[in-house]
């Protein structure tokens, strides 16, 4: 395998890829957590947020928080099912790590360009529900159990529109591989004009909106944060967790937000590609381009999160089953008709 004309052995390549994946999840969680949770929310609420740690606008705050969590005592409730309780956060984090495997950041820079790309990413993202249910049940706490049940009900309901929203993109690109979807957007054309390629956000705008709404629910972010609703359930399935196990949940939450933002940027905004940039410069610019697009998508997600109030449980289910899924099915039918007709 050659990257930037460098020849690298297979074993070293594998170790390097594993290292990248291990670094990118906590890093993504830190960047998103700092930029949006600490700074953007503060400014939207006319306050400054943490300003001291690290000097410049308190950028060190989350690293410090992380170090603090690592020092804390590892508390397991007496009635808890110890093994299940201890293993639950690991499953949530593993599901986040696995999602990054297929997300490309350049023409060859991808850990594994699977033929089933986007389908794989959505399949492994659904594994985190098992971790959430394990956490809620093993805590031996009514609040935690209620949170886990809400999470499971919500994630089952919103997985369908999430998958169905992507079907339109897959049909248009003719492949499920994320590299294939990126190159379909880079080399495509809008009604014969190929100036900026064909980012699917234009032709699949309904799919994009459905994907963003369903991703928001998959991430349990407001207005879909029933599972962790702090005013009624304290913190839902996380209520008994502390120390580094809580840190795992935190990294899982923001790492998955990074993954979904990157996935949305790849599926609908052209991923690492930029109009007119090919070859080596695409290789070098790719990560930066994807990062900018990812932050744009994440900005939308967190903007909604800090703006809207929480939905009621029955409204939440009604939106998924009576509203999102029929629209997603209609979107697939219309895409199929247009694809066959033109």
């Amino acid at each position, binding site marked *: 395998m050659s990257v930037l004309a460098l020849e690298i052995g297979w074993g070293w390549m594998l170790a390097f890829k594993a290292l990248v994946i291990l670094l990118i999840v906590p890093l993504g969680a830190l960047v998103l957590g700092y930029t949006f949770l600490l700074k953007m929310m503060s400014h939207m609420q006319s306050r400054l947020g943490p300003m001291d740690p690290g000097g410049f606008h308190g950028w060190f705050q989350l690293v410090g928080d992380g170090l603090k969590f690592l020092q804390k005592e590892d508390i397991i409730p007496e009635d808890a099912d110890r093994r299940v309780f201890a293993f639950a956060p690991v499953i949530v984090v593993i599901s986040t790590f696995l999602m990054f495997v297929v997300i490309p950041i350049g023409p060859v820079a991808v850990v594994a360009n699977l033929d089933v790309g986007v389908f794989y990413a959505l399949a492994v993202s659904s594994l985190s529900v098992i971790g959430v*249910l394990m956490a809620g049940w093993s805590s031996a706490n009514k609040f935690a159990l209620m949170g886990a049940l809400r999470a499971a009900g919500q994630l089952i309901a919103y997985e369908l529109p999430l998958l169905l929203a992507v079907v339109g993109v897959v049909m248009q690109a003719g492949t499920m591989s994320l590299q294939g979807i990126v190159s379909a957007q880079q080399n495509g054309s809008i009604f014969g004009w190929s100036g900026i390629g064909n980012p699917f956000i234009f032709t699949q705008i309904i799919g994009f909106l459905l994907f963003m709404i369903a991703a928001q629910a998959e991430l349990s972010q407001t207005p879909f944060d029933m599972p962790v609703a702090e005013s009624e359930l304290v913190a839902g399935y996380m209520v008994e967790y502390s120390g580094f196990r809580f840190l795992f949940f935190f990294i899982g939450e923001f790492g998955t937000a990074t993954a979904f933002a990157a996935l949305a940027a790849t599926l609908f905004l052209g991923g690492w590609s930029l109009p007119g940039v090919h070859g080596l410069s695409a290789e070098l610019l790719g990560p930066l381009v994807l990062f900018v697009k990812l932050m744009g998508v994440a900005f939308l997600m967190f903007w909604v999160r800090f703006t809207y109030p929480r939905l009621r449980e029955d409204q939440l289910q009604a939106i998924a089953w009576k509203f999102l899924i029929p629209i997603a099915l209609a979107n697939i039918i219309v895409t199929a008709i247009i694809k066959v007709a033109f």
Partner: protein
Amino acid sequence: MVAQNVAFWIIAIAMVLSAIGVVRTSNVVHAALYLVIVLAGAAAQYILLAAEFVAWVQVLIYIGAVVILFLFGIMLTRSPMGDLDLDNSQRMPAFVASLALVGTLTALLVDAFGNSKVVIDAPTKTSVLSSDIFRLYIVPFEAVSILLLAALVGAIVLARRD
């Protein structure tokens, strides 16, 4: 092929031990969690057979939905903690029945495939798989769809109270 064989045996042993765990444990939630390992092992075996799409369908449907619904149902109704007395006096009949099933399936597989070898050089493309399903096997596919739809409607009819 040596690496594939080693991987097969590791996964197979893990699957068998977890499957025994499913029936041995006295806690329903633990049984469901052992089932996750068995189903994940099946997905791993599909990957060894280069059937990528089937493997991830297995993960999405069985682990991501079926087991979740199991756990959801268990937790919604009883949410048992600790060891429960779920045993009954049918251990021996169950043992004999499962042994008979293992024997039948083994005999059937050996009889049908014997020493025939399948050569796999690359993962099956999803596009090949989908054109097979929608060209060659369209009638069975649609029949299964209608069966599932009927089951769905039937479940709603049974659950409705009016």
